[in-house]
């Protein structure tokens, strides 16, 4: 029995490890490549130097793009949190004809191909003379973030908001705003936070919309990398990709912390 179990485990490892390795390899390759001594991005890298990181930070264009990406993501998350939470609250516990359609419209940015959104956004913002600024990218990203916050707030509403809590609060003298502040907000806070983190990650590395709406003063970090890999081949690309990796690990950790707190609450 024990031997069969051991054999089974060996087969399990033998099949799963290569798959896991395959999934992680592209990510793991980036960091060593950023640590190259060479002036070109290359594989295998020539070890070992941190000059690509210092070059990346000291290059004003790359620095500007990094800040811009943060600005775009911040605007997108702010918009997404407000619209996504408001939509989830409005639709919660309500039945009306066409609710499915409304939900579908909110979820559309996840399903509709990015090129379609990007092209549509390009046309509208061109007409509004907003092309070439980070605000246009942030606005469109806000639309992209909305469904993520929506889903995550919806989940916490279902999980943590007992409708009787709202009724209780009202019978205890709480008006609608007080209910929102004292009952609903504590229940959805983890959901808003989780949605915001996910939305940040979505906006920060979104490239299609950012590419369509870019301008000389509105080049997000992913777009800068995409251009650099075509023309410059500098290891700064790998350095910034490492930054992405670090950020996504941080987002994952933060999300895990939020989830753990939600469970503990």
């Amino acid at each position, binding site marked *: 029995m024990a031997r069969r179990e051991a054999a089974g485990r060996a087969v399990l490892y033998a099949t799963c490890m290569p798959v896991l390795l395959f999934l992680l390899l592209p990510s793991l390759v980036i960091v060593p490549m950023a640590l190259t001594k060479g002036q070109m991005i290359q594989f295998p890298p020539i070890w070992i130097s941190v000059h690509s990181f210092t070059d990346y930070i000291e290059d004003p264009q790359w620095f500007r793009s990094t800040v811009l990406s943060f600005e775009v993501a911040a605007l997108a998350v702010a918009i997404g949190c407000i619209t996504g939470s408001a939509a989830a609250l409005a639709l919660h516990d309500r039945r009306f004809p066409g609710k499915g359609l409304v939900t579908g419209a909110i979820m559309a940015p996840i399903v509709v191909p990015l090129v379609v959104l990007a092209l549509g956004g390009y046309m509208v913002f061109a007409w509004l003379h907003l092309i070439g600024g980070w605000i246009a990218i942030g606005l469109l990203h806000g639309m992209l973030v909305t469904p993520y916050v929506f889903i995550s707030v919806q989940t916490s509403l279902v999980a*943590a908001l*007992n409708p*009787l*809590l709202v*009724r*209780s*609060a*009202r*019978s*205890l*003298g*709480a*008006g609608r705003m*007080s209910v929102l502040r*004292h*009952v609903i907000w*504590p229940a959805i806070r983890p959901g808003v936070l989780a949605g915001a983190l996910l939305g940040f990650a979505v906006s920060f590395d979104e490239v299609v919309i950012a590419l369509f709406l870019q301008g000389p003063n509105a080049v997000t970090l992913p777009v800068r990398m995409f251009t650099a890999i075509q023309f410059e081949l500098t290891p700064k690309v790998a350095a910034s990709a490492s930054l992405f990796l670090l950020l996504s690990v941080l987002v994952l950790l933060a999300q895990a912390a939020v989830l753990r707190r939600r469970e503990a*609450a």
Partner: protein
Amino acid sequence: MNVALPIVATASLGEARHYLSVEHVWKSYTSGVHVVRDVSFTLAPGEFLTLLGPSGSGKTSTLMMVAGFEAPTRGAIRVDGRDVAQLPPERRNFGVVFQGYALFPHMSVLDNVAFPLRMKGLGGAARRRAAMEMLDKVGLADFATRRPRALSGGQQQRVALARALVFEPDALLLDEPLGALDRKLRESLQIEIKELQRRLGVSILFVTHDQDEAMMMSDRIAVMQDGEIAQLGAPEEVYLHPETPFVAGFLGDTNLLRGQCIAQPGGHAVVRFADGVIGPARLSRGGRRPGIGDAVLVSIRPERIGLLQPDAAADCVVEGVVADRVFLGRHTRLEVAALGRMLIVSAAVQPSADVVPGATVRLGWSGEDAQILNESDGQTPIRHGRA
């Protein structure tokens, strides 16, 4: 109705005591369904009134309309004569306790109890002091800093009560608050709520489907069926003198006997049952009176039927053959074939050893315990608060 009158009289002496009255309230949906039909009752200061009924009888809908979570289609809900039916729940002054207590999970026990005072704009120190006093009254002062989740079901229940009482509401509305608890705990909390109510003098409108709970706690019970009040009265009145087959059956086991009204001397009826057995019976207070010769349905509670000694007499005496005998601890249940049917007899005193299946016994009951029911149950039900 007149049962409440003495309590009303004490209330008129003044103080900050309030009178809740629900007047001809309907709740109808556009689909034509009437969840609540023409319900009227009053809750006197300090009174414990229970809406008792099966699920779907409209008891919770009625309570929700009083609390303000649902709007009545017609009718008035008054506190001291002032119609509150149009006010949102937060502007009425009722303490509501739901099944599951609905304590705020992210607040401490003390903050939960202080919440209604905070909503009323009371300062931090004052509301904490008042909340602490209230927690002390329900015996939970030591748990003030805990989170609700850290308390047992019974303790959470008491926190919910403290929170609903701390702002001195006009009445306490309880929606099956003990439904989620096991029997032992439920019984001890029933006593506790009752005691708290007596001590604080608060009026309580209570909703339950549990007839024992209703009987134990209430000053008056409104038995609800299909959105209407089928009967409203003191527990012993609705139990011993039910007016409809539904009320008779819902409040416990009963024997329903068919018969014919053959005379009505002096305010009661004389009924001829099967086999020519004749006995007196009480006429129902509400509803239509049966005429001479009309068929009637009579309810007799199993514990009101006695096993008679050979020489003993009773208002009505029948002979029967024991079909079954079951010892149930507090009483012994007999099934006796008599009057062409099976009579259930519940004997508090252990019947003698010769009362076994096959034995012939004499059964008897008093005319006071034979209650004529209003058979129009369901079609043209009796209206209370009007007749």
